[in-house]
């Protein structure tokens, strides 16, 4: 459960969300950010709840899935660790586009999506839901209040969470190798 929480925190990476949009626009659209956050969370919870059908559709066992998921998570973590955050982009003018952008690609990262299925299959949808909720809500909040967060600190935090994601990825992959 701790690993699931740490996994979502590191793969959603709230620090990366905080620096995903530029700071020079004085827009204040909490509804769009909230909609994007809730949308991302719903997708993760749905994937966790549908983990068994997802594995059946892929025709692979949980061990094989977790091995691949761990590698995806670790690769995404290494990317953050080495290259830092992706360059910030201007806020989309349209409210719905902003909500969509917040959901994807900012909050629905590859690592978070593959982790949702893994946690759902191993611990159940409820655990996946609350651990993902903590990370996604924190990330949505960080994105919304980004102007008041120290930029340099956030950039460093992106790399730190990237390192955490790398470790989580390795743990998930090794666990996958050991799953019967």
């Amino acid at each position: 459960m701790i690993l699931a929480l740490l996994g979502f925190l590191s793969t959603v990476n709230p620090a990366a969300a905080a620096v995903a949009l530029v700071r020079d626009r004085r827009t204040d659209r909490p509804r769009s950010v909230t909609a994007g956050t809730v949308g991302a969370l719903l997708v993760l919870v749905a994937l966790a709840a549908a983990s068994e059908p997802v594995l059946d559709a892929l025709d692979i066992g949980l061990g094989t899935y977790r091995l691949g998921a761990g590698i995806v998570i670790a690769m995404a973590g290494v990317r953050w660790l080495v290259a830092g955050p992706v360059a910030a982009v201007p806020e989309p003018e349209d409210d719905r586009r902003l909500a969509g952008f917040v959901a994807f690609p900012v909050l629905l990262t590859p690592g978070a999506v593959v982790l949702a299925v893994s946690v759902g299959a191993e611990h159940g949808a409820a655990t996946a839901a609350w651990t993902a909720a903590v990370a996604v809500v924190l990330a949505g909040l960080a994105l919304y209040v980004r102007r008041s967060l120290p930029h340099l600190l956030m950039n460093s935090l992106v790399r730190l969470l990237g390192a955490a994601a790398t470790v989580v990825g390795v743990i998930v992959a090794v666990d996958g190798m050991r799953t019967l």
Partner: protein
Amino acid sequence: MTAGRRTRRALATWVLGAGVMRLTLWAPEVCPDLARSEARAAARAAAEWIVGNQDDDGRYLYDFHRERDESSDDYNLVRHAGVTMSLYQLVLGGEGQYLDEADRGLAWMLERTRDLGDGTVAFTDTDQAKLGASALLLVSLAHRRLATADPGHDRTMRGLAAFVVGQQRADGSMLDLYDLDAGRPVPDRTSVFATGEALWGLALVHEAFPHLGFDEPAWRILDHLATARDEDEGIVPPPWPDQWAAYSLAEMAEWGLQDRHVTYARRLAERFAMIARFDAQRGTWYGSLTHGPAPRGGGVGTWLEGLGALRMLALVDGRLADLRAPMAETLACAAGNLADRQVDAGPRVSAQEQGAWFYDDLTRMDDQQHAASGMLLAEPVLP
């Protein structure tokens, strides 16, 4: 860059990444259906390859290259003993028609045993005796005894067991070779194969002669395997997928295994299962490109033996109860894949091909040995 462009780039990366994952790590695991009767038929066909190509003196056909239509002059005593052991497993499993051929294979080995003094016996045809050869001869004799209740070779069994014990070092590890001229084991040379074979031999001997104390050296080997062998031998990732150790653990299931032994058994099961799952991913049309060619029949057979033996252990040891169902599922899957790759009978299929498993057009006697033994162990989990 705009948000829209970044979204499109992310989407493209996702699609590409998902495709790569699907082709590689998340390729489907293909598990052909296999009925219990079909597994038995596959084991029988493998045994027919062994006995159908056996010489009158008991020697087996070592290998056969179907493209070149030839077999090599190579031979290996350890593999001869393993093939004979497998035939006795079949006899024990109800295939009594192979007893004569197994006994011929046994006679070939007994002609090559050497008395080392003090009742110690080694199986060798050179001035160096391999531990694995004597250990698997011992295992063959133990299976024959179980299948026939004939005590005629009890003395040889005890002599071979004494030889095996003589190869043991203080830390429980086993030396692989014995120098007959020098009259002592060759120092510092070990084998990842022979150690497990020695353990199984001693475990079976203790079951046959419980008063002789062969359980003590057996425990020391098992401790070594469970706690030190992988590090000593530099096995990465551990543990070495040792089906001989799995057989031994199943044999020792009622001796009172310690938690460290059960942990080792669990790690072994995980290792066999991981390899078997990877092999199942070769079942797609592109599987051989992304996962390499299918391994030797003998290789897959050892996974079946390992999983089958550990499943037997899990059935009697509650600490492994959670592994029963997943091991059965993986075992059935691997057996289905192995059976799929066996050469079926046909008008143009020679006796050297029928019932065999080929890798690069070559089959070797231990391919049929391990596959036959593995199929026997997989039977209980099949419909």
